[in-house]
């Protein structure tokens, strides 16, 4: 499958979602409208509890109790499907299976011949840098390795839309940066549509074409920040900082800057 046809588009319209509360239903999402073209990389960002994970779970098909419409590709959502892969903050590997067995499970539904599964698993482990750890159990992996294994398992299902629920937020800074880079490369190579949930402004600015800022109670879209910076992106460039500044502003975060945060990159160039 060539790059352009790999990704699936996502169209969410007038999405409402309630959770049962003590005093009747509690509104969690209200009037979410979101269009993600095939192969785009978007990030959902917003305060804790604003419903980011809920959106991903609905798109994944893990929860089908909502009103409004969610369409991935041509078809409406009818439960989980391998074409929509999901990564969680925790690696969620099966602790009693080795890395190799965990990754193979990701392709089980495809019904490949055992030899083809073996080859696929080997290739994926190679790609995420875990070829040497194939026969270890998850308890023997570091956090970064476990999350890599989890990525390999999800990729084994040949997803065309990847839902990433803060997958790097439990990692240390070095692993986080490395995995962000690898995720960007994967996206560029495959063209899988990416929907990332993050509370890391820098991560959002580095990875995404568009950042959807949500607010809570009930969860709704506050604003959308376009991020047209060319790739590879320079995390310390003034233009990059300008995007970050716009995100801080959209999230109403006080950056501690003595003056209004400049949206024009020029004045910051002198700062070492």
């Amino acid at each position, binding site marked *: 499958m060539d790059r352009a046809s790999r990704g699936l588009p996502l169209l969410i319209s007038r999405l409402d979602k309630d959770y049962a509360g003590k005093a009747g239903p509690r509104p969690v999402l209200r009037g979410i409208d979101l269009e993600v073209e095939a192969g785009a990389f978007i990030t959902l960002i917003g305060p804790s509890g604003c419903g980011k994970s809920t959106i991903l779970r609905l798109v994944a098909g893990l929860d089908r109790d909502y009103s409004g419409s969610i369409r991935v590709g041509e078809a409406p959502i009818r439960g989980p*499907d391998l074409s929509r892969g999901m990564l969680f903050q925790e690696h969620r590997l*099966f602790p009693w299976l080795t890395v190799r067995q965990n990754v193979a*499970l990701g392709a089980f539904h495809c019904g490949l011949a055992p030899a083809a599964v073996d080859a696929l698993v080997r290739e994926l482990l190679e790609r995420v840098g875990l070829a040497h750890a*194939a*026969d270890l*159990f998850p308890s023997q992996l570091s956090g970064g390795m476990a999350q890599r294994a989890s990525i390999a398992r999800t990729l084994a299902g040949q997803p065309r839309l990847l839902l990433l629920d803060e997958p790097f937020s439990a990692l240390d800074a070095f692993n986080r940066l490395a995995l962000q880079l690898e995720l960007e490369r994967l996206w560029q190579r495959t063209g899988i549509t990416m929907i990332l949930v993050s509370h890391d402004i820098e991560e959002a600015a580095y990875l995404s074409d568009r950042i959807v800022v949500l607010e809570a109670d009930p969860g709704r879209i506050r604003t959308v920040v376009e991020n047209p910076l060319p790739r590879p992106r320079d995390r310390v460039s003034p233009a990059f900082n300008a995007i970050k500044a716009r995100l801080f502003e959209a999230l109403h975060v006080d950056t501690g800057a003595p003056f209004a945060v400049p949206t024009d990159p020029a004045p910051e160039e002198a700062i070492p």
Partner: protein
Amino acid sequence: MSMEVSSGGLAPPGAAEAPRAVPSRAGTLSHPANWRRAASHVASVVAPVALPLLLLGLVASAWEAMAVALHSPLVPHLPEIGKELARIFRGGHFFGEMAVTLLRVGAGFTIAFAVAVAAGIAMGRQKTVAHFLEPAIIVGLTVPGLVWALLCVIWFGIGLTGAAVAVALSIAPALLLNILQGVRAVDAELLEVAAMLRLPLRKRLACLWLPSLMPALLGGARLGLSLAWKVVVLVELFGLSSGIGYQLNSEFGAQNVAGVIAWTLGFAAVMGVLEYGVLAQLEHHLMRWRRTAQV
């Protein structure tokens, strides 16, 4: 499946116990830390064998002391018990009887285990099933094994069926309770992953339910076996003409205390082999993925 580590420079944190040559001054034997490590290594090998033997020795000594002090035929000396042991083991007599009893326990245990796993998963997943079956568990737990033994001898007469049903009825409630707790503890996040990966039921059972339930199943197996012995002996005592329970009863009829003790000891030894030799090894193998605390 072996757990070898390819030479990728990455050592599993759990497998670092093999002695390693450290090319530094701290590597010499005179270093106190190394002595301590060597000592704890020896202790970890010897203790699991030595400590149980120590306990057995102490109990035997106390018994012999009691026999000497009381000087009564009700408390036979160790050599008398030894003689009885030699008698019952001669010509494979003991093992023949033990095999008969084991078959009865095995049959009852298998029935109870299968029923408990199926009912446990159903109860854990469906509230209506749980409400429906809960009274059965509570009643089952309170009925003494003796009652099941009597009833089954009356209902089924003498034979394998009666013994197996009595065993199954007495251990199923405890097993079920154990498994039910295991089912409720199954990781909801992994259930979600199984749904995301679209694993079919067969694969879900093999890769998620069975391994998740393994601690509860092993715990249940231990508990179930220990209860099963007590009941099967009763059934054999009331209605059967073979097996350990029957032999115990005939020694009792002959007022041969040493004989009763000898049969009991042989029986306990087989239990011990089952527990340490089979169940513990099985557990060690099945739970090898679990991280062992290093402190």
